[in-house]
């Protein structure tokens, strides 16, 4: 028996052990636990603002920590920083490469980042001395497209890539501090835990992985989806993860019991989920879909309690403000809408 065969057998055996360990803690289901809880009432959000200015598909948006400014990225080759209260454009940043797929706002508000088919993560300083926004750093090392990026602080950013890895970068030196390898398919999305100690990634191998930021280890792997995971986020308490997939469903995985607790799906929904975000309390999950809509789910009862319709093309990105006051959707129709 060759080593490969031996390893394969051992892998199968370990997988069975994990399945058994997960089963062993299934004393109850989430559905049982919330059987006596009422579904939340119908959630009807209205479009309060429409942010107009992009000339092509919007691929990504991210709120600043002040819950007022947000950044969006479009394949018209621009990053726009918006004042969402007034709809004014605070910055319109022309990009070297128009094939942008992601953007991020630093928690400090001092920087934004973006990247895409150029395989790089470009960092822009918004608070330069002369008032002009310039490229501060170009983080290059990925051998595939940049699908997502999230700042930890002004000197560290995590990126996910079509090369199947995620990377923690030192922005000052432009070097890779840690490479998180393990996914067997393109990494499509990432989310940082509220305590900044871990992050999660969703990939085209249909799994989500939880990573320790400091030691680079993959701590947990979650399966169950039947297609690419396009969107991922943390439940607000940091103990659960929500995912959105091309298999038309969203799932909630609990980190401490190490398994899926609930699936959000409906037989009438047959298109992929592109984006996902929880409301402040976690009770609502907002998910953007390929069919131009955004569905609002009761996270505990797994029932659809609202719809956001208004876009004329795919909803590609969604974000809830840190203060929970509003949700922003970005679409291939080139508009961003603010809802509450």
């Amino acid at each position, binding site marked *: 028996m060759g080593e490969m065969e031996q390893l394969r057998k051992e892998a199968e055996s370990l997988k069975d052990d994990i399945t058994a360990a997960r089963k062993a803690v299934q004393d*109850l289901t989430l559905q049982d636990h919330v059987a006596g809880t009422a579904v939340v009432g119908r959630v009807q959000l209205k479009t309060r603002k429409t942010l107009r200015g992009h000339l092509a598909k919007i691929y990504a948006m991210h709120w600043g920590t002040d819950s007022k400014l947000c950044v969006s990225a479009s394949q018209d080759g621009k990053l726009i920083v918006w004042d969402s209260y007034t709809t004014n454009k605070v910055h319109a940043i022309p990009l070297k490469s128009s094939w942008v797929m992601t953007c991020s706002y630093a928690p400090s508000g001092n920087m934004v980042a973006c990247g895409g088919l150029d395989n790089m993560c470009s960092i822009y300083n918004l608070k330069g001395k002369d008032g002009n926004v310039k490229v501060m750093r170009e983080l290059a090392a990925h051998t595939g497209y940049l699908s997502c990026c999230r700042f930890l602080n002004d000197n560290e950013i995590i990126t996910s890539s079509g090369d199947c890895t995620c990377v923690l970068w030192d922005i000052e030196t432009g070097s890779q501090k840690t490479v998180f390898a393990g996914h067997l398919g393109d990494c499509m999305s990432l989310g940082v835990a509220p305590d900044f100690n871990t992050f999660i990634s969703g990939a085209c191998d249909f799994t989500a992985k939880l990573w320790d930021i400091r030691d680079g280890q993959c701590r947990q792997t979650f399966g169950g989806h039947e297609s690419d995971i396009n969107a991922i986020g943390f439940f607000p308490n940091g103990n659960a993860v929500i995912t959105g997939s091309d298999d038309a469903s969203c799932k909630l995985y609990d980190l401490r019991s190490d398994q899926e607790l609930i699936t959000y799906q409906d037989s009438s929904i047959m298109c992929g989920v592109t984006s996902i975000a929880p409301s402040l*309390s976690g009770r*609502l999950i907002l998910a953007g879909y390929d069919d131009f809509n955004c569905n609002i789910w009761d996270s505990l009862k797994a029932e659809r309690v609202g719809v956001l319709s208004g876009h004329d093309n795919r909803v590609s990105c969604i974000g809830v403000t840190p203060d929970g006051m*509003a949700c922003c959707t970005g679409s291939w129709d080139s508009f961003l809408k603010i809802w509450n």
Partner: protein
Amino acid sequence: MDVYCSNNVLQARRAVEQLRLETELQRIKISAAAEQLVQYCQEHRRADPLLTGIAASSNPFKDKKTCVLL
């Protein structure tokens, strides 16, 4: 999809190591996990504007209409 299958021996060894690590995780009962999720939602329910609704006067995204006395 078998996420741990590979043709490369080194990759296969790493995959087995990773699986060993994941097997050792301490898991809590779902009843406890579910309780914590529900509790968190309950505790923060009132502070969730998308759930409770927002008064027009305190909604920063709603245009405030001013009355002009002619």
